[in-house]
């Protein structure tokens, strides 16, 4: 199958998935019990006030009409306006997404670096004290919830030492603690995966051949083992994008960091349906797109892999 056709097929599939996601989110928010207008007015609204609000948001229309309106807005690149502050949703979501991407990319880069080094060390010193220590630390790492790491870091580095602010955004100092929190969430996974991939490669014939040729251990590891071990890691990185988005919800809440996770959580508690829909849709789209890119790059890196079979 040609790569062009494959990409087109995947993009079409992505469109269908996103449509499904809009339908699910839209349907769910529709089914949510209780009178939405109750949440949007400081005091209990009178019947007339509720009526006016319902008209304004189009809630007096049947579900099909509202869904069609939402889709046609989407086709014009609009995600509607917030029910709370009447601002358009898309710029809000993109703004928050920018903050989250900054945080997430820093966390991802750090966790990859530390995780890969630890994983390689464990694989090279397989079944040694180093391996046992790395694997134990990993077990601890995947059992540690994000909010516990976050609170621990706040206590030590913000309250005790006073080195970093506890919340907010703006400078690198604001980014430090959230990035470490979010990154430590992934280090254990990266180390485990890297160790497994490395062990797999180190058991191959060509490694024995390279060693038999008398190549130095560093050359064997760096040029022969590591490069092949990195191939499966591309997928791992792709899968972590979803995790990063999820982990950032909690991280951002703890550190009051104005990213997409905090946007979703605060919009949910305010029952601001358009913002919830927009944020979920945009993040899901990003998630699916990254997975597509990962699949493509996989074939790019390893020519043995054929797409679409």
């Amino acid at each position: 199958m040609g790569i062009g056709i494959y990409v087109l097929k995947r993009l079409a599939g992505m469109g269908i998935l996103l449509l499904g996601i809009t339908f699910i989110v839209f349907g769910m928010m529709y089914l949510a019990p209780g009178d939405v207008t109750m949440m949007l007015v400081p005091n209990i609204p009178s019947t007339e006030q509720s009526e006016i609000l319902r008209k304004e948001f189009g809630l007096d229309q049947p579900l099909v009409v509202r869904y069609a309106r939402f889709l046609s807005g989407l086709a014009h690149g609009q995600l509607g306006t917030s029910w709370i502050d009447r601002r358009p949703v898309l710029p809000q979501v993109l703004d928050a997404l920018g903050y989250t991407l900054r945080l997430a990319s820093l966390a991802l880069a750090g966790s990859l670096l530390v995780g890969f080094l630890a994983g390689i060390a464990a694989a090279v010193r397989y079944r040694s004290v180093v391996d046992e220590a790395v694997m134990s630390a990993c077990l601890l790492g995947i059992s540690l919830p994000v909010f516990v790491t976050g609170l621990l870091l706040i206590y030590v580095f913000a309250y005790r030492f006073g080195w970093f602010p506890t919340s907010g955004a703006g400078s690198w100092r604001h980014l430090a603690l959230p990035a470490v929190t979010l990154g430590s969430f992934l280090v254990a996974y990266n180390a485990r995966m890297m160790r497994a991939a490395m062990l797999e490669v180190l058991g191959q014939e060509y490694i024995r051949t390279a060693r038999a040729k008398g190549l130095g251990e560093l050359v064997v590891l760096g040029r022969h083992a590591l490069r092949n071990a990195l191939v499966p890691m591309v997928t791992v990185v792709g899968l972590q994008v979803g995790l990063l988005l999820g982990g950032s919800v909690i991280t951002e809440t703890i550190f009051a960091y104005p990213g997409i996770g905090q946007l979703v959580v605060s919009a949910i508690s305010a029952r601001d349906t358009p913002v919830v829909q927009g944020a979920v849709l945009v993040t899901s789209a990003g998630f699916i797109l990254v997975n597509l890119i990962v699949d493509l790059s996989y074939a790019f890196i390893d020519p043995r892999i054929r797409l679409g079979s």
Partner: protein
Amino acid sequence: MPSSILASGSGAEAGLALERRASSAGRRSSLLRAFPRSVRGTIGAAILLAMLAAAAGAGWLAPHDPAQASLRHRLEGPSRTFPLGTDWIGRCLLSRLLYGIRLTFLVGVVTVAIGGAVGVLLGLLAGYFGGLLETLIMRAADLLLAFPYFLLTIVLVAVLGANLTNAILAIAVWTMPHYVRLVRAVVLSVKAREFVDGARALGRPELGILRRHVLPNCLAPIIVQSSTFCAQNMLMAASLSFLGLGAQPPSPELGAMLGTGRAYLRAAPHVVAVPALGILLGVLGVNCLGDALRDALDPRSGARS
């Protein structure tokens, strides 16, 4: 979470390889051997047993009623009456910890039981019967998996209403498609084996074949995946409660205790440390069990060298 993604990816192969192995060596003996193999395994088993004992015996072990407030003993450190101190309205932290661990285990097991049962059933049907049924089930699973981790659960809880029952339901919904994918993949390979053809040639009814011959051969990867999901569902439930979307405050749920307790982080860090340690140790215990199971059932990680 990634470990689950890994589990579902390698689970199918693990299951098949296990079968090959089970015919020669015994499955039970390798399971027993897996635990005390390393220091890590021994410590893990000890933690898990201690946590299970704490959860099971919460009713006897707790010195106080976990909901009993005593305003004269607010935010106190450890003492003889309150071995782990008290929280912001003077409730006994040890008692709340014990009941919280019980709740956390309960959530992990129940979400896996619900999501796993439905997922396994759908996966069996999709893999065995194929056709339109398979397409429908797999597309629905794809759709649920297209939501980034945690987002689906959050939105579901937001819609259903924030309480522990709905959190369990939402986590079960999130768990389900992972089982569908795993089981379908295993079924597809089991289906092609001779004993299935044999059973069919003998005229056994399809559902009987599914139950007697296909399902038992899917169990190993299901067991491995279940331990992973139990651990991460415990974390997810605690996270939801931490955000105020799960168990609500009076409940001794560990995530909820942390969510409210974080306001006292500076003044009385033990209020945060106690539930934090509870979550960590509980999840750690289950993860150790999962590691041991994987070592025993997954030859790729078991016989590495």
